[in-house]
């Protein structure tokens, strides 16, 4: 599903500082990172995309339709899992039995498989599950929903290392190229290899929206032994320096280091990084 954000502005109080301003982006199908510091407006943006909030100004369109339009046909195309969200029902199986009837693409097979991968049966009473286990049960279900658009807000919070790895594997398996998955997370490394693009927010404003291809065709992410005068951003390490450098025409593209790109965008190097991505390759 294509998500189109046109000059989105949102304010909670009407008079107060806007939670989002001037956000314009186009998000194509694929797995996208939504990153930003605390209070940058990530959750608000997810709510707008999910149709839970209407932007104060601007337009949000999902495949050309307004997600806040109150049309069940469009509402059934997406699902949002937030941090600390509760699902009603004694067990996740009970909940799935009642809730999945609204989602014709729900796959019971995938659901059971996901539960098994997380080490759950689905019949565990939700009240007795720990926060992490509850999250695993919820993730098992929503990944099997089959909605073309899935919005995950901090999905790895409360998950153990094994759980995070399982989640990464399941996302890789079950998110087909025509589906759109937007993951808002601070644990960027966890899904590093999965991201097809990123949306970076800073203090309510959009800093960058780019695909993996756009980033990797402009920037190189290297581990340098010696200093490089061309480096746009560096991070000293014990055995060298991690650096972002412009990618020249003859250079071999490197894999995008989303974590380092995010750090660079929140450093004084931001302007140079953005310039390199948006201007033509030397």
């Amino acid at each position: 599903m294509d998500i189109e954000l046109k000059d989105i502005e949102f304010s909670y109080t009407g008079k107060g500082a806007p939670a989002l301003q001037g956000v314009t982006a186009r998000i194509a199908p694929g797995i996208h990172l939504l990153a930003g510091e605390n209070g940058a407006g990530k959750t608000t943006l997810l709510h707008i995309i999910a149709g839970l909030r209407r932007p104060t100004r601007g337009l949000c369109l999902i495949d050309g339709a307004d997600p806040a339009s109150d049309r069940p046909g469009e509402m059934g195309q997406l699902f949002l899992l937030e941090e600390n969200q509760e699902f009603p029902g004694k067990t996740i199986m009970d909940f799935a039995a009642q809730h999945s009837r609204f989602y014709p693409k729900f796959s019971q097979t995938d659901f059971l498989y996901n539960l098994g991968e997380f080490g759950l049966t689905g019949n565990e009473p939700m009240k007795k599950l720990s926060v992490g286990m509850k999250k695993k049960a919820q993730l098992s279900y929503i990944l099997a929903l089959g909605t073309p658009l899935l919005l995950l807000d901090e999905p790895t919070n409360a998950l153990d290392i094994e759980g995070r790895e399982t989640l990464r594997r399941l996302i890789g398996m079950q998110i087909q190229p025509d589906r759109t998955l937007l993951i808002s997370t601070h644990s960027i490394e966890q899904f590093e290899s999965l991201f097809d693009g990123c949306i970076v927010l800073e203090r309510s404003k959009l800093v960058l929206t780019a695909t993996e291809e756009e980033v990797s065709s402009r920037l190189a992410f290297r581990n340098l032994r010696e200093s490089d005068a061309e480096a746009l951003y560096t991070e000293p390490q014990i055995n060298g320096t991690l650096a972002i450098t412009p990618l020249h025409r003859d250079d071999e593209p490197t894999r995008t280091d989303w974590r380092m790109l995010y750090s660079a965008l929140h450093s004084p190097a931001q302007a140079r990084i953005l310039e390199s991505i948006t201007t033509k390759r030397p």
Partner: protein
Amino acid sequence: MNPSLNPDRFSWNRIGALCHYYGPRLRKQMIIYFCVSLIASIITLIPAPGAFQVALFTMSQTALQLMYYMAPVVLAKNGDTRIVDRLVPATSLEKFLFLTCYFIPVTGGLTLLLPLISTKVYMMIPAVQTADLVDLLNIRANTSWPIQLTNIMGGISCVLTCLYVVVRSHSNRTLKGVLSVFGVEIAIGILGAIWGMSTAFMEGFHDGYSGVCPNNLSALSREETNQIMHDAITGMTQSDGFLIAVNMIIGGYMLLMFILNYRVQKKMSV
């Protein structure tokens, strides 16, 4: 049944699916309410000393009414489920209709119907015709319809306020729901007090109590006492202007709560 059929129009199928979706949360409440209602009905039929029976009946009726008003609190039972509820692919109208139908006629019938039937049965027993409870029930039964309308609208307003608060609130949803019911009850009580006082001052204190010293009330016969109570209640309704004003205020508030409950389904406030 596939609720995705007819995706953009009103669909009874989807309301059926909503019944299934909310069902597990509401089933337990329905059973408990029915059981409590049954017990309250039995209490009414138990012969007991006059004042004690009236007290027992009044207490059980109050408890049932509060249960009815606070029924929407059940939606807060599973924690904050507002996002998942709001994302359910059904129109706001369908969700609004389902919730208001469940919490007004269904819960109301479940809670108040059995005791109502039991009181009617009780009043038909010839052996209890002298009981104090029968007097009380007779007074209630003879209350004019505008007063009964006020009571019904007041009750529905309590339910709708509780539903709105529970659906809209971010935190402490149960506590806020309970407090909202008491808030509306107090507001209606204040309105009633103003109404009563205004009637008394404008129409005069002539509704049965004139010339009667309160200390001598016990000396009155049963028929006289009932007549005084009946006159006191119906006397207020003789003041049409006030009654219309009170009914308009409560009716207006009820209508507002209907609109707000619909809007809260339409506009998210997560």
